[in-house]
C-alpha cells in the first residue's frame, strides 16, 4: 500500500508528542548518528539554493542560443513567433523559450533515470529487504558520493536510498512546474533550473546503479571485470535467440535466472541492445552485447532474434511493426512502454506462451519480471524452431530492389547525415554493392530514409544485406561495466590529476547519433589513451569503442587496462553508471583533498571546476537523458564536448577567452581577485569535426590550479595535437602559459616565438589557490 511499509507496533508509546495507545507507526527513517562529518550548508538543495553558484558559471559561460524552432506551441495562445525581439503571448522571448525547452528536456532526462531508479529500488526492496546493505565497490568507504554531496546523507541500506529518491522526485516536479506557460521570465534562471535537474539526475543514477550493484552481484568496481562478447558474430544463430532491448535489467535478470535454474543457458542465446545489454553482461558475462541503439533495426531486420523483450528507454517505438513483419513475438515489460499490447501480467504463463507461440497475439505486456523470465524462455523455445530458416532477401534481390529506386533523393533529404544512398542505389542496380556496404558504418539506423521513400524501399535492410558477410563476423571483446571507482584508486591518482601530471580524465559517454559513424569514438578514445589520459566510458559509446581493431586485430579493451589510472580504459557500465564518473571527480575532492562532502555542493563543485581536469565527451549525444547528464556535469564544473548534432540541444555555454574580465577568481589564500586565464574555456561545446573535438578536449583539461609541471604536460598535448590537425601553432598560448616554467621544455623555442608575438609577459596570469566562492577565502590580505 504505502511504499514504506515497515511498521512498529506499540502497546503504549510515550514521546514528546504525547502518549499513544495501541498504535502502529511506520518508520520513516532511522537516523545515522555515527557520521562524524559535519553537515554542509546545502543539504537537499531546493530549486533556488544553488542559484548563485549557477549564475557564477553562467556569467562566464553565456548561453549562445541556436533556436531549433522559431515558434512556441506549448499552449493554446500559440503558436507564437519568437524570432528577433518578438515575444509570445505569455511574454516570453526567444532566449527564454529555448532555455525553457532545455529545462523540459533535462527534466524528462532526469525523470527517466529517476523513474528507473524508483522501479529498481521498489523491486529490490521487495526482493532483498529494507536492510540489504549497500556494497558498491571494493576498497571503498564513500559508497555514494553524489548522494552524500547533494543530500547530506550517508546511505547504508537500500532503504536509505528512498530518502534520496523522494527528494529528487519532489524537486523534479518543482522544475517541471517552472516550465508552465507564463511564469519564469529569465533565461538564465531557466538554465539554472536545468542545472538543478542535471544534479538531481546524477543522484538518481547513483541510486539506480548502487542498488543493483549491491544486490544483483554486478562487479563491484573491479578493474579486472570480465570480458564479454559484442557484435552480431557473438550470437550463435543456430540456437533460439532472445533479444532484450532497453535500459532496465530486471526482466533480463529473471530471464537469465530462469535459464540457469532450468539449465538452459547453453541452449538459448540471450543478447542485449543498449544499456540493458551492459547490465546483463554485468550480471552474467555470458549474455551477449549486440550493440548500441543504432543497431536495433539492423539486427531485427537481419532476422536473428526469435523473440524480443523490451523494457524501457531507448527502444524504437515502431518495434511492434518491425517485429510483426518478421513474425517475431514481443514481450513488453514496463508500464512506461506498453506499446498498446494487452496486459497479461495476471494470466497463466502457459496460456501466454501458447498465444505467443501460436501467433494468436503478436505481443503481450507483462509487468512482473519473474513471469517475464518464464514466459520468455518457454516462448522462444517454441517459436525458434518454427522460424528457422526465415531469412531476409538475398543479395540478388538487392539489385532488383535497387532497380525500383526512382532516384528521387527523398531518402537523402531525410537522412540526418545526408548519406549517399542514391549513389549506392545506382551502383547496386549494376550489381556493385560496395557503396551500400560502405554505408553500414555511417548509418545511425534511424529509418527516416525508408519513411521518406515513395516506393518504400527497405534501405536499412539493403545496407545490412550488402554488408552481411562482414556483419556476421563482427565480434569484439568488451570489458563489462565495472561500476564505481574504488577509493584506493582515487587515492593513487588524486594528486597526479589535481597537479596535472595525469593530463586529464576524459569521459566518453552518450548515445550513437554520430555524424560519421562510431569509429570516431574509438579514434578519440585511442588518442587519449595513447597519451595516458584516464578514459572512462559508458553506454553506447563504450560499445562503439569496442568495435574498432588495429592492424593486429586488437581493440582498445584488449590493449588498455581497466584501471582508473593513466592510460586506463574504464567501462563503468550503463547510462546510470555515469554517476560513477561524476562520483570519481567528487571523490577526488573528498578523498585526496579531504574536503567535506556532506551537503557541501558549492565547495566541491568549485574544487572540481578549478582543479580536476575532467572533460565529458558525448560525440553522439541524442537524448534528453544525455542533456540532463551533461547538465549535472556543468553544475559540478565539468565541461562537456558534443558532436555537431549536439548543437540541436539549442544552446552552447561558451566562454570568451578574449575577455580578461571573465576569468577572475579569488585567491583563497588572501582574497585577492586575480586573472587566471580562460581555463576551462567552455562549459558546453559542439565541435564541427573530430579533430577540432580532440584538440578542444585537450585544452579543456587545463585548470587554474595546474602545477607548472602539470600545465606543461597539458600544453604539450595541446600543442602537439593542434599542430597535427591545424598545421600550425595555436594562437592562444599566451592565455595558458602563466610562467616560463609552464612551457614544455621540448617545445620551448617555438612557444617563445608564439608568446612574443602576443606580447606575453610573466605577470599577467596568476597561479592562486583558485576559487569562485567568496566564502572560501581563508584570510583577507
Amino acid at each position: 500500500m504505502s511504499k514504506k511499509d515497515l511498521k512498529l507496533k506499540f502497546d503504549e508509546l510515550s514521546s514528546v508528542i504525547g502518549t499513544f495507545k495501541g498504535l502502529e507507526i511506520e518508520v520513516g527513517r532511522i537516523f545515522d548518528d555515527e557520521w562524524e562529518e559535519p553537515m554542509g550548508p546545502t543539504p537537499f538543495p531546493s530549486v533556488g539554493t544553488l542559484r548563485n553558484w549557477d549564475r557564477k558559471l553562467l556569467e562566464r559561460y553565456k548561453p549562445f542560443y541556436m533556436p531549433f524552432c522559431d515558434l512556441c506551441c506549448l499552449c493554446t495562445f500559440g503558436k507564437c513567433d519568437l524570432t528577433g525581439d518578438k515575444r509570445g503571448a505569455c511574454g516570453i522571448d526567444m532566449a527564454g523559450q529555448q532555455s525553457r525547452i532545455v529545462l523540459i528536456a533535462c527534466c524528462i532526462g532526469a525523470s527517466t533515470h529517476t523513474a528507473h531508479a524508483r522501479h529498481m529500488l521498489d523491486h529490490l526492496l521487495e526482493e532483498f529487504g529494507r536492510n540489504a546493505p549497500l556494497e558498491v565497490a571494493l576498497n571503498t568507504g564513500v559508497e555514494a558520493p553524489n548522494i552524500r554531496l547533494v543530500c547530506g546523507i550517508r546511505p547504508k541500506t537500500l532503504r536509505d536510498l528512498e530518502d534520496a529518491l523522494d527528494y529528487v522526485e519532489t524537486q523534479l516536479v518543482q522544475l517541471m512546474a517552472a516550465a508552465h506557460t507564463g511564469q519564469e521570465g529569465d533565461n538564465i534562471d531557466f538554465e539554472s533550473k536545468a542545472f538543478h535537474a542535471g544534479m538531481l539526475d546524477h543522484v538518481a543514477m547513483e541510486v539506480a546503479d548502487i542498488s543493483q550493484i549491491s544486490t544483483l552481484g554486478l562487479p563491484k568496481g573491479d578493474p579486472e571485470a570480465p570480458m564479454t562478447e559484442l557484435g552480431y558474430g557473438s550470437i550463435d544463430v543456430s540456437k533460439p535467440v532472445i533479444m532484450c532491448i532497453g535500459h532496465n535489467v530486471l526482466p533480463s535478470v529473471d530471464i537469465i535466472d530462469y535459464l540457469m535454474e532450468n539449465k538452459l543457458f547453453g541452449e538459448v542465446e540471450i543478447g542485449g541492445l543498449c544499456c540493458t545489454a551492459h547490465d546483463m553482461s554485468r550480471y552474467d558475462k555470458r549474455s551477449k552485447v549486440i550493440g548500441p541503439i543504432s543497431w536495433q533495426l539492423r539486427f531485427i531486420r537481419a532476422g536473428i532474434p526469435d523473440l524480443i523483450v523490451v523494457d524501457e528507454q531507448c527502444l524504437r517505438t515502431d518495434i511492434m511493426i518491425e517485429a510483426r513483419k518478421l513474425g517475431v513475438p514481443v514481450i513488453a515489460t514496463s508500464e512506461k512502454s506498453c506499446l498498446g499490447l494487452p496486459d497479461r501480467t495476471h494470466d497463466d504463463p502457459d496460456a501466454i506462451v501458447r498465444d505467443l507461440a501460436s501467433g494468436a497475439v503478436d505481443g503481450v505486456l507483462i509487468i512482473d519480471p519473474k513471469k517475464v523470465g518464464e514466459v520468455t524462455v518457454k516462448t522462444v523455445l517454441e517459436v525458434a524452431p518454427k522460424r528457422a530458416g526465415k531469412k531476409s532477401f538475398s543479395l540478388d534481390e538487392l539489385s532488383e530492389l535497387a532497380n525500383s529506386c526512382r532516384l528521387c533523393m527523398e531518402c537523402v533529404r531525410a537522412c540526418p547525415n545526408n548519406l549517399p544512398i542514391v549513389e549506392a542505389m545506382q551502383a547496386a542496380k549494376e550489381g556493385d554493392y560496395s557503396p551500400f556496404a560502405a554505408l553500414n558504418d555511417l548509418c545511425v539506423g534511424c529509418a527516416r530514409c525508408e519513411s521518406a521513400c515513395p516506393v518504400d524501399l527497405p534501405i536499412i535492410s539493403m545496407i545490412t544485406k550488402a554488408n552481411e558477410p562482414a556483419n556476421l563476423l563482427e565480434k569484439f571483446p568488451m570489458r563489462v561495466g565495472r561500476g564505481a571507482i574504488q577509493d584506493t584508486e582515487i587515492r593513487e591518482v588524486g594528486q597526479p590529476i589535481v597537479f596535472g601530471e595525469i593530463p586529464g580524465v576524459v569521459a566518453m559517454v552518450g548515445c550513437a547519433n554520430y555524424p560519421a559513424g562510431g569509429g570516431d569514438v574509438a579514434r578519440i578514445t585511442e588518442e587519449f589513451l595513447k597519451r595516458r589520459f584516464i578514459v572512462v566510458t559508458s553506454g553506447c559509446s563504450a560499445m562503439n569503442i569496442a568495435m574498432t581493431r588495429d592492424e593486429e586485430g586488437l581493440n582498445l579493451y584488449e590493449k588498455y587496462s581497466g584501471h582508473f589510472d593513466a592510460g586506463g580504459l574504464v567501462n563503468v557500465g550503463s547510462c546510470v553508471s555515469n554517476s560513477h564518473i561524476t562520483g570519481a571527480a567528487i571523490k577526488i575532492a573528498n578523498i585526496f583533498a579531504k574536503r567535506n562532502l556532506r551537503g557541501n555542493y558549492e565547495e566541491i563543485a568549485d574544487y572540481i571546476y578549478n582543479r580536476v581536469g575532467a572533460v565529458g565527451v558525448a560525440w553522439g549525444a541524442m537524448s534528453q537523458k544525455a542533456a540532463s547528464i551533461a547538465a549535472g556535469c556543468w553544475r559540478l564544473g565539468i565541461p562537456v564536448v558534443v558532436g555537431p548534432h549536439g548543437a540541436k540541444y539549442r544552446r552552447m555555454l561558451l566562454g570568451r577567452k578574449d575577455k580578461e574580465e571573465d576569468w577572475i577568481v579569488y585567491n583563497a589564500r588572501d582574497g585577492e581577485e586575480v586573472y587566471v586565464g580562460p581555463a576551462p574555456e567552455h562549459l558546453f561545446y559542439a565541435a564541427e569535426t573530430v579533430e577540432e573535438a580532440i584538440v578542444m578536449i585537450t585544452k579543456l583539461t587545463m585548470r587554474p590550479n595546474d602545477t607548472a609541471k602539470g600545465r606543461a604536460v597539458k600544453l604539450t598535448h595541446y600543442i602537439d595535437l593542434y599542430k597535427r590537425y591545424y598545421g600550425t601553432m595555436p594562437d592562444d598560448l599566451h592565455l595558458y602559459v602563466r610562467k616560463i616554467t609552464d612551457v614544455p621544455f621540448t617545445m620551448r623555442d617555438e612557444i617563445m616565438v608564439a608568446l612574443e608575438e602576443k606580447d606575453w609577459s610573466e605577470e599577467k596570469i596568476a597561479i592562486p589557490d583558485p576559487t569562485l566562492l567568496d566564502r572560501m577565502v581563508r584570510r583577507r590580505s
Partner: protein
Amino acid sequence: MSQKMTLGQTAEIAGPKKAFIIPKPEVVASMIKRAKRPLLVVGSESAKTMTSDGVLVDTAIRLIGKMTVAATGHLVSEFLKRDVQGVHSISLMNLGDRLRDPLWGGFDGEGQYDLVVFAGFPYYLEWLVLNGLKSFAMDLRTISLTRSYQPNASWSLGSMKVDEWKEVLDKIASTLMEEN
C-alpha cells in the same frame, strides 16, 4: 497530392522570418562589395566540396583580399597545406558567439563585421548557427552559399544542382575579382 518540399533536408522548415533567395550571383558580389566589413566563413566540408577552382578551399583562396576569410573546424590546415596564409582559424561555436556581440572587434580589432557569408558546412549545423544569429544578432546580415536553401540566413541560394551551383559560385568569385 500535396506539394513536397524540394529545398534540401526536411529539417529546414523555418519560422516566420525566412531568407530571401538570391536572384543571381551578381547580387551577392555587389552586397559583398558594398559591405563595410564583409567576412567569408568556410566550414569543414570545404575540403571535399568540389568547385570550379578545385575544392571550396581553393575558391575561398581566390577571395582573400576581397574580404576577410575565416576557416572553422581544423580547416585552416587545408589553407596552410597550400601555403596560403592570412586565413583566420576560429571554431564555428566561437565565431557564432562573437558575431552576436556588437562589441567584438573582429580578427583585426577594427570592429564587428556587417556581412557574413557562409559556405562549406554540414547543412543542419549551418542552419542552427544561422538561426542563432537571426534572433540574437539582428543587425548582422548573413548570406548562405550552401547548395540547399538555408532559410535562417538573410539571403540564401535556392537549392540547385551541383553544376549549376559551381557556376554560380564561380560567377560570384569572378564578379568580386573584377575591379569596381
